[in-house]
């Protein structure tokens, strides 16, 4: 028994230093489960699409009308935004600002959620991996906002740490009042905690927090959460703020991966990120 314990500790310590077994099991575990789940998920998405295209046509005319009106509003907004963007670029150039890094997008399908007894973190499995040059800590988003970041890499599949996990920390800034803070997950189906908001910060219900870009993982300006409650405590230096994530990751089927256009290849291959 003692011998088994010593062998286990040696193996554990050796792996802690080299991460060899972590890499090996990431390849075997993610690949095997990925290839088992992917066909079922593909079939499900095809059947859903078939149903929605051919049978589920109730209310399509009304929906089209509403979408047309929304499209007109968005076109107008886009026209104004384009002007503002050009103006901002001109001012940045005038003041000698370094342009922000540009990002490319890759689409991925979610094929699994928090699999197995060791899945203690809030994660989802996506069908992109090292073969598609995916790297650790790449931001994962939807058009509505931030989902999480790449946490563990397999050959064709990767694990994504969601922003709702209690180990997730995202530097954010209020889009209106520009109050910097940290968005901390509190678990599935729970709001995010927005930490370190000073007592005098003019924050109100409905304000949107976007990524501040400070940690160097997420680009600046991606929507993260909308404030649902603000409490001013008498005993704390900070406000107690809770915010609802913009994206409910469990309800998503597809996501986008953002990859920096000037991605520097990591010199040391690491296959699991720190939460």
């Amino acid at each position, binding site marked *: 028994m003692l011998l088994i314990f010593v062998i286990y500790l040696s193996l554990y310590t050796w792996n802690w230093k080299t991460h060899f077994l972590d890499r090996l099991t990431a390849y075997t575990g993610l690949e*095997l489960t990925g290839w088992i789940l992917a066909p079922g998920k593909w079939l499900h998405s095809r059947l859903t699409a078939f149903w929605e295209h051919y049978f589920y046509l109730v209310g399509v005319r009304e929906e089209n009308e509403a979408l047309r009106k929304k499209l007109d509003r968005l076109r107008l907004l886009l026209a104004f935004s384009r002007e503002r963007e050009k103006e901002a670029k001109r001012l940045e150039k005038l003041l000698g600002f370094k342009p922000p890094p540009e990002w490319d997008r890759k689409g991925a399908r979610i094929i*699994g959620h*928090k*699999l*197995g*007894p*060791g*899945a203690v973190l809030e994660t989802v499995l996506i069908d992109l991996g090292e073969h598609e040059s995916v790297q650790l800590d790449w931001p994962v988003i939807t058009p509505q906002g931030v989902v999480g970041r790449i946490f563990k890499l397999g050959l064709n599949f990767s694990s994504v*740490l969601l922003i709702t996990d209690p180990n997730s920390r995202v530097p954010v800034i209020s889009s209106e009042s520009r109050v910097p803070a940290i968005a901390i997950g509190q678990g599935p189906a729970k709001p995010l905690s927005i930490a370190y908001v000073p007592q005098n910060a003019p924050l109100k219900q409905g304000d949107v927090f976007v990524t501040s870009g400070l940690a160097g993982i997420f680009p600046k300006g991606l929507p993260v959460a909308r404030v649902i409650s603000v409490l001013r405590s008498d005993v704390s230096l900070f406000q107690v703020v809770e915010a609802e994530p913009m994206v409910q990751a469990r309800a998503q089927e597809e996501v986008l991966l953002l990859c920096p256009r000037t991605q520097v290849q990591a010199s040391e291959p690491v296959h699991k990120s720190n939460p």
Partner: protein
Amino acid sequence: MSTHSGSGFRTRSQIQSMNSFCFWLGYFLISVWGQEFVPGTDFFSPGLLVLLQFNRLKSALFLGLVILFVQEGTGSLNFGLVILLELGIFLLFILGTWLLTPTNLFFVFVYFLGLTIYRSALIWVLGNLQEIVVEFFSIKMLVVQLVVYLSMWALVFPVYKKLFGHEPVQQ
């Protein structure tokens, strides 16, 4: 004649092995999908208990190895959790057979209750060692895991017994 019956025996043995392989492959697929439908739970351990109950140690070792490489890969912790979980499965079985008959329903219930608590404690200890915030003993997760263990065992044990016709271990 003897050659013919020897060849027939080998064929029957091969068919038996193939059936066993297909059975465990089916179990593997069901477990992976089960783990997708009930996030954060373990569907594989009841299979190991069934093999131990039928005294199939070699098969248990092989299945344990496959489970190790799958579960460690899908998990969020560093390598080491599933080895300890499988050691616990084996040790709890040995301890249990000292006191009760391993096929007794009371044994199965107590065994899985112990395994559920052991698994939660293990995750909490290893999570804290790796400085990961882990929920301490969620009653909901304990109940869900126990139900999953008992349901999977109730599904696998009778089918395995019917298909492979062995007598389980009686100690």
